[in-house]
């Protein structure tokens, strides 16, 4: 039996991102419908979340690139209880750690439009973007039907 999916379109102000100079590109990119992650010019690997140095080799030759938004579920959990609004009204829902197709990067995010019964480790997923405030958006994931 599939649970009805909650509406995630409204988020309270305290959940809104407060971007730093390091990660602003990610949040603005999401608002523009792009998953922007960092790529290292020295080792060629990617990373998320944004950092000052490459987490793989330590080089400082990092620049934002637009990722495909495609990936595979590395691990996940189902949140069935959460006493804090707005999540109290959203349960149950899936939170997943997604290994992106771009080597080196993983992204943790919610899967608000995906029925909890259909999620498995190894499943293919695609990024979705959910506006928050005027300038930014959250990155979510959904099962990739393509």
């Amino acid at each position, binding site marked *: 039996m599939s649970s009805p999916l909650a509406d995630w379109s409204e988020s309270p102000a305290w959940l809104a991102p407060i971007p730093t100079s390091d990660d602003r590109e990610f949040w603005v990119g999401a608002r523009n419908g792009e998953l922007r992650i960092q790529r290292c010019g020295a080792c060629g690997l990617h990373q998320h*979340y944004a950092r000052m140095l490459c987490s793989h080799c330590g080089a400082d030759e990092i620049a934002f690139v637009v990722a495909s938004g495609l990936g595979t579920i590395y*691990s996940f959990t189902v949140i069935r*209880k959460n006493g804090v609004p707005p999540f109290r009204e*959203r349960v149950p829902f899936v939170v997943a750690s997604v290994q992106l197709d771009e080597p080196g990067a993983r992204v*943790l995010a919610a899967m608000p439009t995906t029925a909890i019964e259909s999620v498995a480790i190894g499943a293919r997923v695609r990024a979705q973007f959910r506006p928050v405030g005027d300038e930014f958006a959250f990155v979510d994931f959904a099962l990739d039907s393509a």
Partner: protein
Amino acid sequence: MSDRTLSRKAAIAGIGQTEFSKDSGRSELQLACEAVLAAITDAGLTPSDVDGLVTFTMDTSEEMEVARNVGMTEVSMFSRVHYGGGAAAGTVLQAAMAVATGVADAVVCYRAFNERSGNRFGNMTGRITTLPPWLSWYAPYGLMTPASWVALHAHRYMERYGVTNADFAPIAIVDRTNAATNPGAWFYERPITFEEHQQSRWIIEPVLRLLDCCQESDGGVAVLVTSTERARDLPNPPAVIAAASQGATFDSEMMTSYYRDDLTGLPEMGVVAKRVWSQSGLTPSDISTAFLYDHFTPFVLMQLEELGFCGRGEAKDWATVERLSLGGELPINTSGGLLGEAYIHGMNGITECVRQIRGTSCNQLANVEHALVTSGTGVPTSGLILSTL
């Protein structure tokens, strides 16, 4: 062994605690002072003999409030350790370093809280206005409680090694069996069976059932650390600190660490393991009993692997009730652990191992020489080996 070693230079000479409850009915400061005073008295000392204090960064009882209320006169060393329950053995490390170097003569480590009747962890209702940086990548997705944070690691671990929730049952069964014969334990006289474990409700399906998650408690615990030399002359047999270490690795976070390469281990505990074995010169087969921090049962299995009691992925077969019970190859959590006795952020595991070294546990084992204590996992953590004189 280098002259620079900390090994065996300091010892735990006093232990103290309040009762463990769900509603203490008094302030956290009161609990801290009661535990601290009990530890000082147990060591045969007076408050004016104590010149150092160490607690957790999360503790609400300020060092000087404790000092004033119990009557300490001169305090020459005070320090706090970060990362929640990962701090427990770390407080003893700080104290041992202080007495080994002569910075202080007697240091009390304490932790006291009303975690059940006061501020409960994971309850963010009405308390958050802006997110701390480490939570800002997770809380917007509703990942806000310790059980949910642990679940992503444990789920991947289960998938990789073919572990099921039933494989976690021995930890809960052993803890609750030991608690059943500890009059100070919340779950005194209330052991559980395998069937009860498997019938308890899901908290995080298919990872954690109710009986895989530790309880929440009110209470305070303190230990007094002094030089091994001085401890010899005090009333109780010293629990000599054979080794103490903290542990953190690349991409360690507070409970989350989702951006490291592999979520199927506890690399912070791997650091602790390497250090405590080399510092003490001991190996896993030398350990008479262990307190393995048991906030969530899957992380006990992963700790057994990190500490070298068994290989990667082998804990599901190695961690049997028989092996981990009193009289078994590695009796764990002889007071009932956090699941069975109380959740005092791991400090009650240290006091139980001190009692095992002294020979005064309510579940006393025969011939205890070396006891291993670990602290909170999934966070930057710490560990200790306590030995007889």
